């Protein structure tokens, strides 16, 4: 044995050495693999109407700040459909599928608003990269947000913010916003067939679950990449930066940020309303897991009583879902959405007095559970208002403000309202979200900050015959779209129903000259 080993060792060592040399030589001499992604020059007819940046570098995705990690366009083949991911990640798919993220690029209201904006400018489609960077990032990164779409659609074309768009993120700039995310859609993905994923799941996990990516997408910074939005001259008529959506900044300066409660803690908790109540009770323990529902405030897109109209509004049914399954998932998320909304706000009577034949009272609108302003986001269509009605002892109504006309879908024009207004260069209000002609953004009343309240004062003449005690009924309403916006954009008579966030009933002073 020893003899044989001594005899065969030299040729075996030589063989091993030669094999090593061969392997190294092959590695050195073999041509480098092509850099993943697609070069700008390889996308025919791609238009760059906004010119290069200050350093002279091309800005293929501008006015969105979205980027790929290697600066190249995404190969559509690398953007896999969520339906494919669902093969193994069924629970996550079922959570994500009814979410607004899943339909971000296809819901009819959004899609028509973008089309109307595109029609406002010669380079409208290219300008819409600003919108699509957050709503349909795969389309922008593949080079399809272009007047002439010379790139093949990906399997995830209609899926909005699909799996790959978050699980390849490497950088976010929440202060700049406007889609300021960098995604490793070219270098951070695997292209393994199903069998290989099953055989070597670690490679798949390394591709879509890199430590840096996992840490980033668990942070509020990541959300801020899109939930910070400002207009400038690239996509609007603004001559100075106009803040349109400040959700990240609202959170960043809040008690929630100070105490480490992130966006994901509430919006990805399995039961968001329960988690908000837990935090309100002082328990900051993190959720037991993070679900992919991204529960938010848009109750309309989960209103299954709309029937087929809801399918129309949501832009159809996602790949990988049946009609029945789609409806069931939407119904479930609708309950979570409504519960979350109800956990956010409160009403309190602060002062009340009768003096000089007039009734004066103040109502506090409280942000009790939202880690950002109430309302938040782009609130030129979404808005919140306060309805107050006062009755005397006989039940006669002596004051009413903020009524909603359910037949016409109109809110009392004199209501106390929390909304921002887009204005054109002449200062006129633009009611239908025409970003490309917006010059300034003003607030009717800014949103209520986290853990703060906005005190609203009312004063009304008392009819001579009115006798107390007076009963004040206050209701805080939220609506996801103005009727003007719905009508102008969809050309339908669909009344957008409001949602009651909070209600309170209070007894006011009884006498003609009384103070509480």
């Amino acid at each position, binding site marked *: 044995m020893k003899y044989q080993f001594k005899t065969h060792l030299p040729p075996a060592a030589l063989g091993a050495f030669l094999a090593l040399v061969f392997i190294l030589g092959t590695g050195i001499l073999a041509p480098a693999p092509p850099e993943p992604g697609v070069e700008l020059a390889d996308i025919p007819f791609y238009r760059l109407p906004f010119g290069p940046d200050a350093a002279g570098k091309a800005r293929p995705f501008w006015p969105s700040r979205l980027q790929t990690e290697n600066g190249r366009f995404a190969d559509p083949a690398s953007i896999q459909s969520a339906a494919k991911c669902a093969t193994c990640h069924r629970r996550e798919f079922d959570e994500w599928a009814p979410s607004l993220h899943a339909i971000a690029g296809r819901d009819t209201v959004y899609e028509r608003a973008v089309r109307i904006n595109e029609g406002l400018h010669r380079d409208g489609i290219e300008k819409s990269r600003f919108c699509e960077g957050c709503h349909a990032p795969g389309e922008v990164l593949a080079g399809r947000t272009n007047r002439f779409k*010379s790139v093949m659609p990906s399997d995830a074309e209609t899926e909005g913010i699909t799996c790959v768009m978050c699980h390849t993120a490497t950088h976010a700039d929440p202060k700049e916003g406007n889609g300021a995310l960098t995604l490793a859609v070219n270098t951070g993905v695997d292209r393994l067939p199903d069998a290989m994923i099953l055989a070597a799941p670690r490679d798949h996990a390394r591709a879509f679950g890199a430590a840096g990516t996992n840490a980033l997408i668990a942070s509020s910074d990541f959300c801020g990449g899109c939930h910070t939005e400002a207009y400038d001259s690239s996509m609007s008529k603004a001559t100075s930066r106009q803040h349109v959506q400040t959700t990240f900044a609202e959170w960043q300066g809040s008690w929630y940020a100070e105490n480490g409660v992130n966006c994901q803690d509430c919006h990805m908790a399995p039961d968001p309303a329960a988690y908000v109540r837990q935090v309100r009770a002082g328990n900051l323990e993190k959720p037991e897991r993070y679900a992919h529902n991204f529960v938010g405030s848009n109750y309309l897109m989960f209103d299954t009583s709309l029937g087929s109209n809801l399918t129309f509004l949501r832009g159809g049914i996602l790949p990988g879902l049946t009609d029945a399954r789609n409806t069931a998932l939407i119904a479930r998320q609708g309950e979570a959405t409504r519960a979350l909304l109800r956990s956010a706000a409160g009403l309190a009577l602060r002062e009340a007095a009768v003096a000089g034949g007039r009734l004066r009272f103040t109502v506090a609108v409280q942000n009790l559970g939202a880690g950002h302003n109430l309302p938040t986001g782009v609130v030129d269509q979404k808005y919140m208002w306060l309805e107050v009605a006062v009755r005397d002892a006989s039940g006669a109504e002596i004051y009413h403000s903020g009524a909603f006309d359910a037949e016409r879908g109109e809110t009392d024009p004199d209501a106390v309202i929390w909304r921002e207004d887009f204005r054109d260069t002449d200062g006129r209000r633009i009611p239908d979200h025409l970003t490309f002609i917006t010059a300034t953004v003003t607030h009717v009343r800014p949103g209520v900050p986290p853990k703060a309240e906005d005190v609203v004062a009312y004063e009304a003449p008392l009819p001579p015959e009115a006798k107390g005690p007076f009963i004040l009924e206050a209701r805080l309403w939220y609506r996801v779209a103005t009727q003007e916006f719905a009508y102008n954009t969809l050309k339908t008579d669909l009344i957008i129903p409001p949602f009651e966030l909070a209600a309170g009933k209070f007894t006011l002073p009884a006498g003609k000259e009384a103070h509480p």
Partner: protein
Amino acid sequence: MNGRGLVLAAALLLAPVAGVAADDAEGLGLANVKEFTLEHSRGLVAQAELLEAGLADYHALIAAHGGDYAAAWAAEGARLAERIHTIRALWLEASNHYETIEGIVAGIPETAKYDLILDAGNPGTESEDVAEYDLPLPDGTVLKRPGNLFHTITEPLFWGMDEKGVKLPADLNGDGKVTRGEMLFDANLGLGAAQGLARWAKALEADMTAWKPNREDALTSVVVMTPTVGDYFGEWKESQFISGEIGAFVAQSRLTDVEGIMSGCRRMYSQALSPVVAAIDADLDSRITAGFEELLGLVEDTRAREAAGTKFGAEEADALGNEAQDIADRIVAMVLQAAAKADVQIRG
């Protein structure tokens, strides 16, 4: 001479013949491009004239009451409501005709100004893309550079989106309530705008008649019209979803339009572009041709099923719509890639 030499010699001998055949086919295809465009131009003129007549009737009803909209509504409410309903339907038809050829009109330097006047131009208060025309109204007023006729003037006017044009809120559908869009609009502006629409539509048709399309025009036509086909399919899909509950803009099935437009696209490609593409990349040409066949097959099958009484559910209608759009997107991408290989430029 070996076999390879024979093939080479045959190819050299036949090449000029193939070139002539391709030229003939391209010429035929370009003629089809022009005919298709003219067909929709004529359709636009016809609808605009009907719209003008509808507005003239509406204007006369208001004028018969001295311009008193309340009095006119009290006396002729039902007729006015019916007129407005008709006017909106005619506007949609006219707009659909224009949208079908918009990409071509905007892409041809000789006709680009009509796109601004009819559909895409800004008012004179803007600094760019201004619709350079003035609009005379029946009362003698002349609106200086008022913006495009379809979307700046008539659409907001006819649907009550522009408060200034609303003369009287009125219960048009007789359901006992007056909701947004239920109103009598300014008859003077409406008639003037409809007259302008008819006048400029005719001018466009005249210039289109004189137009001599080239290969670039054919390419532009195919790449701008194929996605429009997807839009029409989408409208059909939505009409399945909404079953008449909402969405006054999609009252009819669009499958007929889809089939007509798709056939036109296939014809334009096969006759004007395919010979050029095949000479450079035969595989790409065959894939594009197969794409058109697949799309047309899908449309024809769906239309046949609808005609046979099939009522499509939301899930199936959506799947069909997505499939049609996906095929159309792939066709356009391949046609553009072929154009780049053939060094054919796009106009527009």
